[in-house]
């Protein structure tokens, strides 16, 4: 089914359409959240909250403002960051390792060779360090282009083209 139709139905609170969207994006959201909170249970919990939040605020989404994926990605990142700022969370996690998402991928190599993610992990690790940095900031951390430019000490134009090339790379790795 067309994504546009699905999103429209979702806005009209069609649960079936919402379930399809959930199937499409929930793993992605859990991944993004996990990268921030680094706890599988908490990530699962936040991910579910994010989708409930999305459902409750369905009417506030407008496709003119951005992709549905981007919208929910924003909700997920904000929810995860909020969680890391909560007192209870800070107390339980003394220091979050500042490693990039690739490190999470690495840890899974030893688990199950057949899962899809590990296949991807292998490819992703082929990405250059520069790419990993930029993807981390823009997609996992939700930096704006100017924030990324500041953080990486690169002009915005360079950020854009470099990111473009990195994603091109990624696409050739993960999409046949």
């Amino acid at each position, binding site marked *: 089914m067309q*994504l546009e139709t699905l999103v429209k139905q979702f806005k009209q*609170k069609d*649960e079936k359409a*919402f*379930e399809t969207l*959930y*199937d499409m994006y*929930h*793993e*992605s959201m859990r*991944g*993004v959240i*996990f*990268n921030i909170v680094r706890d*599988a249970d908490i*990530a*699962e919990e936040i*991910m*579910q909250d994010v*989708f*409930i939040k999305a*459902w*409750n605020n369905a009417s506030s989404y407008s*496709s*003119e*403002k*951005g*992709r549905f*994926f*981007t*919208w929910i*990605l*924003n909700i997920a990142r904000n929810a995860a960051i909020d969680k890391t700022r909560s007192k209870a969370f800070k107390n339980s996690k003394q220091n979050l390792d500042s490693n990039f*998402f690739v490190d*999470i*991928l690495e840890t*899974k190599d030893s688990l199950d060779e057949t*899962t*899809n*993610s590990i296949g*991807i*992990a292998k490819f*992703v690790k082929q990405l250059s360090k520069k790419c990993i940095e930029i993807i981390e900031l*823009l*997609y*996992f951390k*939700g930096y*704006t*282009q100017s924030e*990324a430019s500041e953080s990486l000490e690169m002009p915005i134009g360079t950020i*854009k*083209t*470099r*990111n*473009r090339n990195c*994603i091109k790379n*990624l*696409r050739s790795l*993960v*999409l046949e």
Partner: protein
Amino acid sequence: MDIKAYIESGILELYVAGALSEKENQEVYSLMQQYPEIEKEVIEIEAAIVRLTGSTIESDLGIESFEKIKNQLGHNKVITITKSKYNWITYTGWAASIVLGLGLLYTTNKNNQLQSDIQISKTQQSLLETQIENSKSNLKEANTLISVLRDENILKIPLAGQGNFANTFAKVYWDKKAQRIFLDAEGLPEPPQGKVYQVWSLTLNPLTPTSLGTIDNFNQDSNKIFEITNPNNSEAFGITLEPVGGSETPTMNQLYTLGVISAS
């Protein structure tokens, strides 16, 4: 517009990341609507990011987890269905019928109230009419009395209490010309049940009583002044207590008051 260059600029990757300004987002969106190549590019970028982000953590909870949130959507779903089932027309209809119902109820209530108000007014009106009628006749009566009292030709005969009834009294005003008397019976007690006062005209030589009738409305009359016809050449007036209907001759032991006309 150079679509290829636009795509190569890397703006679409930032668009998917949510790293653009609101204005830029709207720009990309409208270009996507115009150029399918741009839309295709966005979809592919998004797909790659979804796969990448989704692969950071192992997931075997997938199917089960939607069931978990589904329960939490439940409440909202009920509300949603209610909303779509009963649209604004239904609500407006209900609201209108309630308003109408209340209106009708109010009107009926008001109508009943007005009806009863009218009834009350009518009653009051007839009451007032009666009062006016009474006042008129009272006035007439009073005027008559005044004219009687002022008339020089009227004899005033005090009737003194007799025997056991010494503390009673009455007065007779006799208008000889008009052949009527006015009896002022204020000094008499109310007659007991089954009895009435009977007024007598008397001649003294020989003593002959002539009945002037009974006072049947003694209790009802407020001023206790009674007009009685008297065509006789009376020499005295007496009042006795008799059984209802009156008697042929006065019951002498029930003679209350008696007054003799002084020769003048």
